[in-house]
Structure formats: C-alpha cells, structure tokens
C-alpha cells in the first residue's frame, strides 16, 4: 500500500510548513503541470494562468500549515487552492471579455473534451470512465462548472435551462460521479 518510493503529499506539505524549500520544489515538480493545465483550462490565457500558478504556490509556501490531512488529501487541497484562485481571477475579468472567451471556447466543443484529453495515468482513466458514465446533460453541467468556472446561473443561461433544472442536474451529476468513482476504485483495487 505504501511501497511507492516517493514522499507522500502529506509529508511534503508538513515539511513545507516547517520551511523546507526542497519539499516545496518537490511538490511543485509533482503537480505544477496538472495544476497549470487546470488553471489554463479555466482562464484560457497562458500568462495569466502562469501568474495564478505562481501566486498559488506562494500561498502553499505561506499556508502549508493550514493543510489538515484529516480533512482530505493534499492533492485536493492543492486543486482547491488552484481553482479558487483561477476562479477569482476569472470573475474579476470584465464580463465583456469573458463572454468573448467563453463563446470562442464553446466553438471548440467544450463539453466532451474533458474526457477526450490525453490521459496520463490510471487515475485519470478512472475519472474519465466515471465521467462517461454520467448522463449527458448532468455531465455537461459539471464540465461547465469545473472546467470553465461558470456559476450555476451562468450555466443555466448558457444552456438556456431553468436554474432549478441546472441545480438538480449538478447535484445528481456529483452524486453519480461519487458513486462511479467508488465503483471504479473498487474494481481497480480488486484487479491489482
């Protein structure tokens, strides 16, 4: 279970909280690519995304002591920080500019490409399969929220659906996602 040679995320975060620069560098090397991908996905602007990534790791450096392993995984903590900063940045951008970006992105068919991205790991494959198992209209709402940083009202507007419908779809989608992830995990565990 713990045969992997690398230091766990939790251990790295504890070391960072003690002021260990090498631990920060190690955590950065482990996750900066996936986090930059995530931030870029929301902001659609490379310089801004790099800026947010930098701010975010500075925050990790200052606030690593806030990480509480009893509340969740280190990866979740990092992703939450990254998204929160990216979304703050996104919502600070003028709505005009934002609408233009969103419209441009929609023309690429934003709904399905979350699951079309090249998969780098078994875990990514698990999530992709889980996403595929979610009914289309629920997945669409989740994808717009998670990968585009839209609020539920904005999603309702985008999909031209009543807000109540969107809320229900998002909740159902999340519940389904949790269920499918759990199943996938079990099957992987049995298989390994």
């Amino acid at each position: 279970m713990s045969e992997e040679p690398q230091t766990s995320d939790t251990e790295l975060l504890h070391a960072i909280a003690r002021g260990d620069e090498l631990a920060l560098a190690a955590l950065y090397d482990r996750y900066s690519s996936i986090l930059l991908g995530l931030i870029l996905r929301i902001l659609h602007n490379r310089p801004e995304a790099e800026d947010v990534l930098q701010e975010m790791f500075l925050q990790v450096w200052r606030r690593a002591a806030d990480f509480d392993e009893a509340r969740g995984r280190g990866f979740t903590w990092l992703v939450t920080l990254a998204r929160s900063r990216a979304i703050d940045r996104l919502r600070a951008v003028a709505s005009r500019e934002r609408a233009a970006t969103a419209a441009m992105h929609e023309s690429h068919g934003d709904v399905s490409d979350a699951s079309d991205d090249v998969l780098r790991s078994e875990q990514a494959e698990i999530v992709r399969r889980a996403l595929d198992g979610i009914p289309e209209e629920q997945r669409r709402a989740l994808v717009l929220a998670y990968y585009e940083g839209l609020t539920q009202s904005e999603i309702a507007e985008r999909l031209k659906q009543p807000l109540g419908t969107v809320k229900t779809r998002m909740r159902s989608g999340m519940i389904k996602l949790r269920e499918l992830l759990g199943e996938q995990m079990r099957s992987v565990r049995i298989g390994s």
Partner: protein
Amino acid sequence: MKHEEYKELLEVAALDALDAAERRALEAHLVECATCPAEADAWREVAAALALPIMPVKPTAAMRERLLEAIRTQSPPVRAIAAPGAQTNGEHAAAQTSNVVSLDSRRERRGVLISKPLLTFGSIAASVAIAALAVTLALLWSQNKALQTQLARASDSLRQNEQEIGSLRADRELLAAPDARTVALAGTKDATTAQARLTYDQRTGRAMLVAANLPPVPAGKAYQLWFIAGGKPLPGGLFRPDANGRAELRGTVPTAGRRADTFAVTLEPQDGVPAPTGSMYLLSAAS
C-alpha cells in the same frame, strides 16, 4: 434556510459554482454546523478528481526558478499552531469509516463521512485553540503598540534632553571662557523692574542674554538687542519674553559689536530693523 437546504448546496459548492449570495449563506452555515463541514470536505474530494483527466501543461523552467527565488526572499511559512485534540480525533474518526472516494491508494483508509461527535469535539477544540490564539495575538499587538508609543515618547524626551544638555554645555563653556564678559542691563522708565544680563565671549562672539520682568510684547513686535560702539548702534538678535516676562537669547555678537561700550534693548517690528526706531526698555551702564 434550513440545514437540509444548506446540505443540498454542498455538491455545487464543491464545484465553486454557487452564485455569490448562496455561497455566502453557506459559508455562514458551515461555521456553525456540526456535520456540513465534513461533508463539504468530502465533496471537495470528489470534485478534485475532475482535475485528473485534464491535459497537463508543463510550466517553463524559468517559472520554477522564479518561484524558488520568490520563496527564498519571502518570510518563512506560517507555523502550525497545534490543536492536538482536533488533529487526533480527526485522524481517529477518519480511520473508522471506509466510504471512500480516495484516488490515492496510500490514503484509501481516509473516510468521507466523519463521525459527528468526534468531529464536533475536534471542531470545538480547534475553535478554542483559534480563539485563544486570536486573544493572544490581540494582546501581543496591543502590547506592541503600547511599547512603540512608549519608545517614541522616550526617544522624543531623549532628543529634548540632548538638546538641553547641548545648550547647557554651550552656556557653561561661554561662562567659563577666559575672555567672557558680562554686562548688566537695567530697565528704563518704560520697564522699571526689568533687568538683563548679557554674557559674551570677546574672542568668539558667542553670546547669551537672559532677561526678566520684561513687559509683554504686542502682536507683530519683538525686542531687539543693540550693540552701541562709539555712539553707533549695531543691530543684534530679536526675542520675545514668555508670559512671566522672561527671555533668553543665544547667538553671536558681530566682531564690531564686541567692542561696544553700551548695550540696549528696544521694542521693534518683529522682523527687526537696521537702526533702532522704538522705545528703549533695557540699557547697560556705559563702561
């Protein structure tokens, strides 16, 4: 809103997709609810899985350098303030359940649904620790402010003392100078009780005038000292007495004035005049 309604916001909150008003309402509820925070954390775990299928984008090497450079110049991280109860109980609770969404095999024992009483105890312990910390910080802050004020006051008064000592030393040196000359000035008919003493160093010209019982000066006016040599008055310094009629003037007597035989003080416009125009208030006996 009721607890159940808040609970239904947690899935969407984990996607950061609540509209501002609902988000704020939920944040307020999370502070006081015993069960929602743990559920919110669990939904965050689910949502974070969605980051995994994203195409990674490798940052440039320069970015890495910039970051590491930045943390070297930054102050060290904020230290954890231990809330031992919270941490231990959280660990314990997490190990009890196995309703797991963990994608990391090392962490699969982590529970999603954390047992309520333990969590509540942990939360309370943490809140108490945080409150204690806040009070400590507030105390330290106010002590620090008070010390800063005291220090500023002390350094002001030190500066004042230094100035006083400096001027006293100058006075003492003047009085002790081998070439010092002291002249007494007496009040005229306009200021019968007034008197003054002028001491000056005949070599350097450094001078000090101390006067007492001078009448108050009207606005726009000042007393001016004169050095009279061979019947010709040379202008000296200007001064105004305090409420008790006392005045001190320190300055330098010009070379020509050091040979004066008579010294006088007149009332003049406050900026002084080249030759006396007003009434005389003090006059030395001719030597």
